[in-house]
């Protein structure tokens, strides 16, 4: 690679600004031409400017800006900071929570991860069983006082083991919204966009929203509770046989609207599946394999006699027949 001449590059970028300002005169253009011809380094520098600016030609402005600003908030220089800090995080993987809200980088903090469509079972040091659903990330922090599992993204199912440590260490699942403390038990925790959800299959757990000023609720077997970082919603009963079916590779739905079924199945598949609003409320019941979502989508379309259109494997649309 040729060594870049900084002075020439600076001049080139200034020329670019002047020439594209809408105020460039013929004399400017003549001087610019003279500048380019004066030195091969100038010419090279100008080529670099063109190389960059031509990348933008022909892009749709609205879409491009939306995509480029996807996770870029002006207040957040944190993202860059996170990148700089990554190597430190590798060394001290328990370092923590600081990068929590920087979604794309969760990856690097996680001890266990699953890709889309992948379900994996792990045995933790204390013998507890941890199942990760699709597209999930967790980090594990066990010490002398506490067994803490941080759910960074996705959904987990936990069967806690009998504590064998001489001193009892509570088993806690922590999400960005709060903590779920196991009271010897089987339960699952899932993170949604702006809340977390706990389903208890055996015994009980205690839920505390992170900013809830100490508020807590005990959730018993067969009960589900959703909570934000400030408060929890009313407890509800749920279908125990369906809710953990994913740990066995299925989802089971009972009179669920099509749009919701599609959302659930999409979790296990790359790309986007959309549904025409006209058929969004059609109800479906059944068990669908999450190991072959495309087959599930086809069978749904067949059952409901609706059409599937796919422009690319990434974009699948359900349409009325």
């Amino acid at each position: 690679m040729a060594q870049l001449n900084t002075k020439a590059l600076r001049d080139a970028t200034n020329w670019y600004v002047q020439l594209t300002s809408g105020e460039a005169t013929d004399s400017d253009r003549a001087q610019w031409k003279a500048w380019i011809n004066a030195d091969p380094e100038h010419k090279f520098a100008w080529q670099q400017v063109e190389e960059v600016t031509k990348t933008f030609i022909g892009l749709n402005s609205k879409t491009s800006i939306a995509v480029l600003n996807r996770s870029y908030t002006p207040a957040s220089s944190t993202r860059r900071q996170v990148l700089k800090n990554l190597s430190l995080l590798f060394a001290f993987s328990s370092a923590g929570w600081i990068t929590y809200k920087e979604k794309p980088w969760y990856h690097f903090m996680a001890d266990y991860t699953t890709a889309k469509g992948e379900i994996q079972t792990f045995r933790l040091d204390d013998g507890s069983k941890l199942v990760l659903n699709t597209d999930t990330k967790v980090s594990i922090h066990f010490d002398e006082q506490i067994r803490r599992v941080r759910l960074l993204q996705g959904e987990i199912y936990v069967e806690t083991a009998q504590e064998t440590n001489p001193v009892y260490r509570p088993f806690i699942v922590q999400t960005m919204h709060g903590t779920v403390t196991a009271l010897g038990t089987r339960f699952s925790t899932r993170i949604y966009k702006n809340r977390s959800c706990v389903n208890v299959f055996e015994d009980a757990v205690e839920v505390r929203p992170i900013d809830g000023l100490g508020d807590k609720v005990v959730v018993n077997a067969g009960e589900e509770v959703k909570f934000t970082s400030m408060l929890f919603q009313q407890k509800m009963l749920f279908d125990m046989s369906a809710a953990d079916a994913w740990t066995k590779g299925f989802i089971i739905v009972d009179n669920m609207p099509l749009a919701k079924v599609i959302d659930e199945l999409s979790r296990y598949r790359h790309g986007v599946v959309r549904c025409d609003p006209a058929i969004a409320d059609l109800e479906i019941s059944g068990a669908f394999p999450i190991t072959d979502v495309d087959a599930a989508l086809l069978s749904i379309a067949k059952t409901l006699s609706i059409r599937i259109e796919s422009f690319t494997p990434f974009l699948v649309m359900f349409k009325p027949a």
Partner: protein
Amino acid sequence: MSTAALYQEVDVCNVNTITQTRDSLITELYQSHNSWLMGWLCKKLGCSFDAADLMQDTFSRVLQKDDLSNIKEPRAYLTTIAHGLMVNHVRRRDIEAAYLDEIANLPQAEAPSPETINIMIETLTKIDEMLDGLPSKIRNAFLWFQLEGLTHAQIAERLSVSVSSVRQYIAKALLHCITMTS
């Protein structure tokens, strides 16, 4: 044999020794660390195709390096490369998801072809990479200028800064992009 020819002979010998050392260094690096690196990547990414691909990419980067004799901590060296590749990988995936989301609601007639989709994702990823590290004002000024075609005065008004600041922002952004791509 003339002195010049002798020198030439020596040079060839040196080159051969260097090539041999280089090959054996790479072989050793691969044999001693490939399964460890795969494990490391699996832990970070889940044991997907991604992890296997990234491992191959990591070693192909190593192959392109000129000087391998200075590697003192091979695992640290490999993870540094793998980490850089992972960041790009995550960036691309992220852009891809955002782009597909943006076009998902377009009427069918306006939906881009698979080729266009690929090119767009490539291009936007490249732009995102180039802009990485720029302060938000400069980043926005540059994007608005390049993509929305706003004038310097309009950008100045949006950002509540002077027109001469906008000119500086655009020049800075451009310089940053050039440095990032070369």
